């Protein structure tokens, strides 16, 4: 093995280890790894634009601007209060409604912002009901990861897959949408069967809860009524444009950046205030990862692995099963973003031997739903567990693992079955 190949593998593995352990910020770990790759010229300077996936980076950036501007209006708190009121003090309704709202919002906006804004309200209601908040928190995490799988913009792995494959927003909705719908029903059914007995309150308690939640004024959560309206209109417009982006011949990133420009122009919010709130570390994290994975492509390692896989896999169906399960289990251990970044060039290389379109769905399914496997598998998990810990609620690694793995195996199993039905063996 060549020196450059060994170095590319070492940088890749060390960066992965640093990302898992996070003693060093993941963005710093990815940037340091990328610096070594560029410094040693494993990826030559002129090839950096080829590996730096600007489609993903600009789409994330545009959506971050839209979400951060909308957040200033109190839109998410408004949604949280309305959902709480709709539940009418019933624990089962709280679990189901919050899961549905989380899944829908996660399908169109980023998962971290969604859970960051809905979890405090969920904890508040669980405290009012004097119930164990863990089932509510777990359902929120699972719903966020499952819901995010439904659309092109729902989860970073889908954004990366779309950018690499050219699949459209409607392609994702038509293929992943039905799978997500079935998985959501199954996931909620499982949570009901497992936790349902404990989710009961006495009628007089329920009355008190309804009164307390009824006293919350969702209109008071709206900090800026004009910005609220403009945010809702812009988000709806952006979602509409995503539906027709392929007909317009526009990349999804262009839609997101256009939406960002519209909301900034229309709302007259100070741009420096919003641009400061862009999650720059996340964008640099992506940038660094693309270069590190680019080194594996550049040295031919990805081609060798792809060749090995092709020689052992005989049909597209077999490849789908392999990729979906590998992505799911690996995503449960490693963050799904670096995993997807690594598997994308591998699938592209496999394109020489088979139809790879079904494989993109298998990767999306595994990478997104694999996020439910462990407490550290996806950012939404970390955020919800982190908030819970700050509120004195502990969810142990094993407690999460038991439920997470069960949800992972069932939802991925169902998803793979549906993909085989859609695309055949």
């Amino acid at each position, binding site marked *: 093995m060549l020196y450059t190949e060994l170095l590319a593998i070492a940088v890749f593995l060390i960066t992965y280890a640093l990302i898992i352990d996070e003693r060093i*910020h993941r963005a710093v770990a990815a940037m340091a790894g990328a610096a070594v790759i560029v410094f040693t010229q494993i990826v030559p300077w002129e090839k950096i634009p080829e590996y730096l996936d600007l489609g993903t980076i600009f789409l994330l950036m545009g959506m971050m601007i839209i979400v951060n501007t909308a957040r200033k209006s109190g839109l998410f*708190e408004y949604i949280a209060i309305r959902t709480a009121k709709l539940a009418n003090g019933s624990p089962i309704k709280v679990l189901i409604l919050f899961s549905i709202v989380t899944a829908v919002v996660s399908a169109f906006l980023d998962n971290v912002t969604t859970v960051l804004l809905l979890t*405090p309200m969920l904890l508040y209601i669980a405290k009012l009901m004097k119930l164990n908040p863990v089932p509510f928190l777990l359902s929120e995490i699972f719903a966020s990861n499952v819901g995010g799988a439904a659309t092109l913009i729902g989860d970073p792995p889908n954004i990366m897959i779309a950018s690499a494959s050219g699949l459209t927003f409607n392609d994702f909705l038509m293929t992943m949408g039905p799978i997500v719908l079935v998985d959501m029903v199954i996931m909620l059914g499982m949570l009901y069967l497992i936790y349902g007995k404990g989710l009961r309150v006495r009628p007089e308690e329920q009355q008190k809860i309804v009164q307390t939640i009824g006293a919350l004024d969702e209109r*008071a*959560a709206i900090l800026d009524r004009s910005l609220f309206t403009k945010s809702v209109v812009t988000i709806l417009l952006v979602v509409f444009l995503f539906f027709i982006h392929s007909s317009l011949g526009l990349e999804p990133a262009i839609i997101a950046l256009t939406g960002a420009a519209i909301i900034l122009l229309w709302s007259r919010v100070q741009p420096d205030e919003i641009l400061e709130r862009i*999650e720059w570390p996340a964008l640099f994290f992506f940038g660094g990862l693309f270069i590190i994975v680019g080194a594996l492509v550049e040295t031919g390692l990805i081609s060798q692995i792809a060749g090995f896989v092709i020689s052992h896999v005989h049909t597209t169906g077999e490849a789908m099963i392999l990729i979906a399960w590998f992505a799911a289990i690996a995503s449960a251990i490693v963050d799904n973003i670096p995993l997807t970044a690594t598997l994308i060039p591998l699938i592209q290389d496999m394109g020489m031997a088979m139809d790879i379109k079904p494989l993109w769905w298998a990767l999306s399914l595994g990478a997104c739903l694999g996020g439910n496997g462990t407490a550290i598998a996806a950012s939404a998990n970390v955020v919800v567990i982190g908030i819970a810990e700050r509120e004195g609620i502990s969810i142990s690694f094993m407690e999460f693992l038991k439920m997470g793995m069960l949800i992972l195996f069932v939802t991925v199993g169902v998803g793979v079955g549906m993909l085989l039905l859609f695309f055949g063996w």
Partner: protein
Amino acid sequence: MGYFTSLIQRKFKDVAGTRYDTVMKEYREFLLTEEERKVPEVRSILMPLDYFVKEVPSVLYDTLSSYEGATVSLVYIIDLEVIRIVEDSLNADTVAEFKRKREAYGEEILRKTTADLERAGLPVKSRMFSGSKFENIAEVAESHDLIAVSKKYAASLTEVAAVSPVTLRLAQTVAKPIIIY
């Protein structure tokens, strides 16, 4: 702290950053705290009155009537210090006239307030005496669960002071829930 907990904290810090603190600050604007949600058990309410309290708003009776079974102690105080000053500077007949007028006013407001409170379904005990408007009330408040005091108590209001200094001091020093009307 176990490895898992510290790992989650590290990852949380990197992913959520300071956004969580901002979100919690926004939520605190409209979500009641656990302490705020608790309705204190109120069996006795102290309601100080004096010459400056000209009327009690009807909304206060509605509020107090929600404390079912609570007894209201109406206390009308004539400032002893004022009486001493009057005694030092005026003749005996004028002093007697002053006292009579103050007591008549006291009796009238006690009678009216007692009737209004009883109509709201609250049992009432009332008394009138001369003393210190702050110290005596602070002392009597110890044996009550709630104080309802006018912002005009013990002083007429000015543009500068929207709440009388005595009411403000009661709110700051007495360790009982207080309604300022």
